């Protein structure tokens, strides 16, 4: 099975554009699908309208999730995802946010985030992040099966 795209959840268009640019500089083959609010993420991952077509909207291999989002925050999305009865709840989620608050970091991990990254201040730092993200999460990391039912071992 081919790897799904990176699902970038980012409401700030400048940040989104700079992140996408950084990924493009690292590897032009990386597919990035961007959503701008929490509700859309829930609709996308559960295959609801307008994202029913999994050929057009395949399940991602990893989610880059901002915390502060319109409608449904990154935390709410994460909590929703980890409670899904289907195997989609295994989906690796990486927080990418400007908050360096320990409260936010701890909460993200408590809710089942796989990693937590702070948005870099400069373009070169962002490019470094994109390169390391690519080599770790897209090349090294082994992706779980997201289809079928959740394991009975899943967290409550």
């Amino acid at each position, binding site marked *: 099975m081919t790897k799904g795209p990176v699902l970038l959840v980012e409401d700030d268009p*400048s*940040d989104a554009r*700079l992140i996408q*640019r950084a990924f493009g500089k690292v590897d032009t083959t990386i597919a990035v699908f961007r959503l701008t609010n929490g509700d859309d993420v829930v609709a996308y991952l559960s295959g609801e309208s307008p994202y029913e077509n999994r050929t057009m909207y395949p399940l991602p291999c990893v989610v880059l999730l901002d915390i*502060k989002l319109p409608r449904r925050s990154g935390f709410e999305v994460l909590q929703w995802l980890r409670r899904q009865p289907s195997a989609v709840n295994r989906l690796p989620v990486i927080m990418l946010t*400007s*908050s360096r*608050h320990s409260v936010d970091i701890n909460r993200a991990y408590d809710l089942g985030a796989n990693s937590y990254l702070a948005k870099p201040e400069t*373009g070169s730092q962002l490019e470094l992040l994109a390169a390391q993200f690519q080599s770790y999460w897209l090349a090294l990391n082994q992706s779980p099966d997201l289809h079928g039912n959740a394991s009975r071992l899943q967290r409550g």
Partner: protein
Amino acid sequence: MSVDLHLTVGTLRSYNKIIYLLAIRLLRVHDALMASPLITPPTPRPADLHSNEAFQSLIENLADYAIFVIDPAGQIASWNRAGEQLTGYTGQEVIGKHFSLFYTPADLAADKPATEMRRAEREGQVESEEWWLRKDGSRFWASVTITRILGEKNLLGFGTIVRDVTDRRLSDLRYRLLVEGVQDYAIFSLDPNGVVTSWNVGAERIKGYKPEEIIGKNFSTFYTPEDRANELPKKVLGTAASEGHFVGEGWRVRKDGTRFWSSVVVTALRDDEGHLYGFSKVTRDMTERKQLLDAIQQHARELELRIQEREESNAELEAFAYSVSHDLRAPIRAISGFAEALREDCAANLDDRGLDYLNEITNAAHRMNTLVQDLLEYGRVSRINMPLQTVSLLDAVQQASQQLGDQRRGSLEIDVAADLYVEGHPPVLTQVVLNLLTNAFKFHSKDTTPEVNVFAEQRNGRIRLNVRDNGIGIAPQHHERIWQVFERLHEREAYPGTGIGLAIVKRAVGRMHGSYGVESDVGKGSTFWIELPEASASKMGESKEAK
């Protein structure tokens, strides 16, 4: 027999019936003596008083009670030994005389003997207390009971019993003067039903009623309508009656309708045999104390409220700071990000001037980012919950020096003993040291190599950490203002910075119960110091609360 009766007379306070019986007996004696039949006794009891001799002997021997008979005109018709002892007159001297000879000139002027006789004739009996004169002209306070003796058709005379109660009168008088004179306490008495029977000056002052306005009225008047509806007056008397006394505080109503906070003691009054004959009530106006207490409580409540508000506003500030960190930094990221993208992607289309402008943009964005970060840090140091614990000073210094990064130039010498511990908040202490180190390396002229020396001293239970540099120094007139937020001594081109670093040091050290300072002059380098309470290593892990 006579002994029994004597006891009865002595113990019974209401001896009206006995007096009546005695009087009747007395008249019989009188009758026997005068040999003229006068009356038929209306009551046959007590049966053991049948013998005239015995009764006469009883009368004779009743110590303390002058018992005699006067005829309807007021003339003394009989006399006993107690009468002689009490007044100094023998029977011979008084029998046949008008009984007014015992009265004082003032009472005579008021026609008191005749008045009392008329009242006794009309009402059956008169009890009074008044001054009586002895034969030698001295006085005694007499308790006098005059009882009407009726024949079948006409008045036969009066039985009179007199007792010297001067001692009681004097102690009563002293007591009354005492009670009546008390200003600060309302002291008054109630009958068993709560009707006011006496009233002192304090009561008048506190409650506003004159004695004649309140005596005879029920004390429930003093209670609020709510308390009356709840039958509090009844409960108060009930408690006093069953437990001996009632103690309480509450709102009471003055004559003019205003309320006062009273502290009350109600005591049940019982006679020798335990019969309840009334209550004494002592009331104190505690309104001022109550108001004071209320004010204190009100202050306490307001203080709590203010603390709560402050906590709430702190939470709001926290949310605001969070918002600033998130929202304000996003456009800065965009500015610097796109400036870099422009430089990389479109460099071919830019001349040197264009590239220079881009540098300005990037630098400004960087400065703004630092500013936001420093402001957030300053706010955080001011507000965060800062539990103090024992911190190794050397650890804090070493961590700070590691965080210096490329700001470190020249030499850094650390001379801090490993066994020095202070009370502080570890991350904040590290931040403070970092700020001092940053300054120590920053403020140098271009041609000197920074030499920074960090050393500690123990001073009277505190530890001073010094950060000494060989930099440009600070003129003494600026030593105060450098600790203020946004205070800068140099233009940004010479020494970059936001002017917040030392303000953070000041605020943070203050919250850790410490002090700070600087010794410096222009061209002589600077020594910045902070002082914190020393902690012993054994207390490691114990925590206190910061300011």
